[in-house]
């Protein structure tokens, strides 16, 4: 009884905690659902903007500004403020709030990915008579894929981690299990709190692992050796929470 980890194992071993309404399986579905929606929304907004800014070479300052400001806004604040706007109380507001935190890594990596394209390759494409849009689509975009993949991975992991906080506004997700544990007395809820923590952390790491594999698969073989260095450089541009 006194050992919280033992209590956590006990809690996780109870099948009813998994299958009950509002149990682990329900929460897992909610968590993944809203994370996926948020990342998708983030991609729809950030990628076109980032690619275009990178293509024209303007807006480097804007990219930095967006990531810095987003870093300073507390997740909790955004999660509480957005439901009070026209988005209303419920899932849409939570998804938009999470998407805001997906934008900086997506945007910065899309921008950097296009900017790092070898200028000679770009000049050659121009010389072959490709228009600006064609250069972007047929030269810069394919070469930026490793960056886009790295940004997607960072964003997705971050959103899955942040989605745990949706429980503060009763937005569902695995964080709800932790919050319910805190709602009890800390001595009584300790097991559930740790169990929830294990689930959330496990999911975030699983997503990280799976996306790392996917990233390797989608990166064309010739681009792989350079990827590691590029990855870190782009990651330095944005360190999210």
């Amino acid at each position, binding site marked *: 009884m006194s050992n919280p980890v033992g209590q956590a194992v006990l809690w996780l071993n109870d099948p009813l905690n998994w299958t009950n309404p509002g149990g682990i399986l329900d929460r897992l579905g909610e968590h993944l659902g809203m994370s996926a929606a948020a990342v998708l929304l983030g991609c729809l907004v950030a990628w076109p903007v980032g690619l275009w800014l990178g293509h024209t070479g303007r807006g480097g300052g804007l990219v930095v500004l967006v990531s810095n400001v987003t870093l300073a806004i507390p997740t909790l*604040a955004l999660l509480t403020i957005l439901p009070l706007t026209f988005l209303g109380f419920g899932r849409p507001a939570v998804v938009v709030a999470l998407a805001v935190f997906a934008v900086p890594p997506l945007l910065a990596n899309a921008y950097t990915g296009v900017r790092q394209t070898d200028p000679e390759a770009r000049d050659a494409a121009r010389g072959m008579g490709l228009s600006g849009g064609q250069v972007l689509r047929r030269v810069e975009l394919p070469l930026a894929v490793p960056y886009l993949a790295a940004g997607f991975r960072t964003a997705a992991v971050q959103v899955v981690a942040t989605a745990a906080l949706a429980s503060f506004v009763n937005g569902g997700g695995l964080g709800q299990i932790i919050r319910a544990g805190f709602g009890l007395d800390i001595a009584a809820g300790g097991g559930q709190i740790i169990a929830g923590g294990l689930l959330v*952390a496990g999911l975030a790491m699983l997503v990280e692992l799976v996306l790392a594999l996917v990233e390797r698969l989608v990166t064309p073989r010739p681009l792989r050796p350079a990827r590691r260095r590029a990855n870190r450089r782009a990651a330095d541009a944005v360190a999210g929470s």
Partner: protein
Amino acid sequence: MSFRLSYRADPGNPWFSWQYVRDNSDTIVAALRDHASLTARAVLIAALVALPLAVAAHWFRPLAGPILAFTGVLYTIPSLALFAFLAPYLGIGAVTVLSVVVLYALLVIVRNAVAGLSQVPPEVREAAEGMGYGRWGRLLRIELPLALPGILTGLRLATVSTVALVTVGVVVGRGGLGQLIFAGFQNNFYKAEIMTGTLLCVLLALVLDLILAGLGRAVTPWLRGRAR
């Protein structure tokens, strides 16, 4: 500290109200002070732990991988989960908040410090060796000063993200300004309270960032005037 409301904007519920700020200035200042002190302590502790770690990673190459990997894994763990792991042991209060926040700040500072130290050109290192500098002399007189810009970038990033992260501490009852945000949410979505907490958070991050930037300028006089 109690975060009761003494005034409720009715009718309306405006996004911002000076009336609220005036009526609750004690609560607001207390929350702000709590937030600032938690942030400052966390960054200070994190820096004191992170710099030796970075130097260790720099000197003993085999250590660099494990240190960076460990801090990287730590960063994947959601903040709420980390609170969940520590709260049953450390209890409800400032110690838990501080531990969680320090752990996150650690990674940012270590990563930037290692990057900064490894960016020192090998010629410079060799020249220092040729001039008879030992390992410590080289570190203190040459490598650390040259790595300062990288280290300062890490400190600034860590500070800004710590300010945002402290709010999550609300879950163990010590969230600083997060307390205002959450209390406003629970008080029938009292917008003025939420907004005040949020704005002060962003403002605090901005001010601390500016202070660190100024400090950075002061300690790296050789970078001034150089074309960026």
